[in-house]
């Protein structure tokens, strides 16, 4: 689940939660140029697809902007 309010997604039990940008533009940023906006969105969506290949023990947060993003999963408390 891609969500800007990722803590809420974790507490409701989504197993793989990908940090989105903002509620009004979860997979993009209108302040960026069209090219950068596309790259930004692709990074979020690609991260989401990659997480489908990763086994998780329970609700887990993935941050597309963190270096080594899929390894930086933070588990919900």
């Amino acid at each position: 689940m891609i969500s800007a309010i990722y803590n809420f997604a974790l507490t409701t039990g989504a197993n793989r939660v990908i940090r989105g940008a903002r509620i009004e533009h979860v997979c993009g940023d209108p302040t960026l140029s069209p090219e950068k906006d596309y790259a930004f969105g692709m990074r979020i969506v690609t991260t989401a697809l990659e997480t489908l290949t990763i086994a998780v023990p329970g609700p887990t947060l993935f941050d597309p902007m963190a270096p080594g993003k899929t390894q930086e999963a933070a588990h919900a408390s």
Partner: protein
Amino acid sequence: MRLEMGTFPVTDIAFGSRTRYDAGRLTVDRETVLAAVRQDPRIAKAELEIARPGESVRIWPVRDVIEPRIKVEGPGVCYPGICGREIATVGEGRTHRLAGMGVVEVSSVNWHDAGGDYVETYLDMSGPYGEMYPYRKLVNLCLVVEPDATLGEEIKNYAVHKAALTVADQLGEAVRSLTPPEREVFELTPADPGLPRVVYIWCVHSPQAMSGSPTAFCTTTYGLTQLTPPWYLHPNEILDGALTGPYRTAFAMSWTVANNPLFLDLYRRHGKDWNFLGVISLRTEWTTQTEKQLMANQTAKLARQLGAQGAVVTWDAGGNEFIEVVRSIQACERLGIKTVFLTSEDDATDGAPTMLEPLPEADAIVSTSFFKNVTLAVPEAPAVSRVIGLPTKRVLRGSSVGLHGGADATLPTAGPLPPPWRYDDHYGFGSLSCIE
């Protein structure tokens, strides 16, 4: 900061040759009042009509209901900042109000053109639907107003709301130099240090995220609607309208903000049952997890700095805004500030919680019932004999599921009408109860 509130009860309104107040009867010089409204070149059409309690009258579309208030002594103007009014800090001196009446802003202007929010409220002055709202007890002077159609949505909003405030100001002038029949002094006098110290956390929606504009029209703080960190307001500022203006729901109007029973009771019992510290007003609909948590943390920090031991919390919105509201409650509780939350509830379809994020710290909750009229099973409002405003009402699909088949439709305003989709009593005006 000391404010004397002079109340002039209005029991009837009639049109006449001069605007004046006499023993509860308000006479309105219709042409002079309308001439003041029409001075604004942005106004294309303006008419005045009276709606009395008990009449078979429906008012549509209702954008706002305003209680006329004017500053008689002390700095500034009532309802400061909104629609370009001056922004001097209010709350001192003397204010006169016309109680028991409303200036109703009747206009087709929508809040903004970004979609998602629509003007949905209509009011009945009698019947079962009318009974659900406090406005049916008021004598209402309705300003039916339309702006120049070529203007942008934001300018249209400011033009029609300014027009309604102009009407309220004209009426207020009639009691400027009169002796008020009722007087009440509001002041945060030093209280017995043994009394519990209580703050009111009054959350109000910001339309900024949804509209994409930091100046979109909505309930304002001195005219500002944008997403801002929490404000500390002296309760007298609110009595003078520093927090005012309408938005989407029938209970988020200037009149309900000015007459919020929870706020007034908190203030009137200051020094008797508790030490009222004032109001923290938090703008809601921040759009990232970080921002929501930051606002919650800062709200709780401000409450602690004020010395609060207890906080009463309300909000006037729905959806994701619940997060910063409930997290403010959590943050207060974690700092040792006990909280009570007054809120409506969502329906419990498929066993879902009736609150978006139920947190264990929010364990003292006063429910004002379900927020959707569909969940409340509010029936269609019956036909009426007179309409003030537009002859037809667009009923949107999501607004009335189950009431007329769930399709979009344009219905005669005077005929049976489904209620707006939201009920949502933000401040505890209603008296709905339930049978287990």
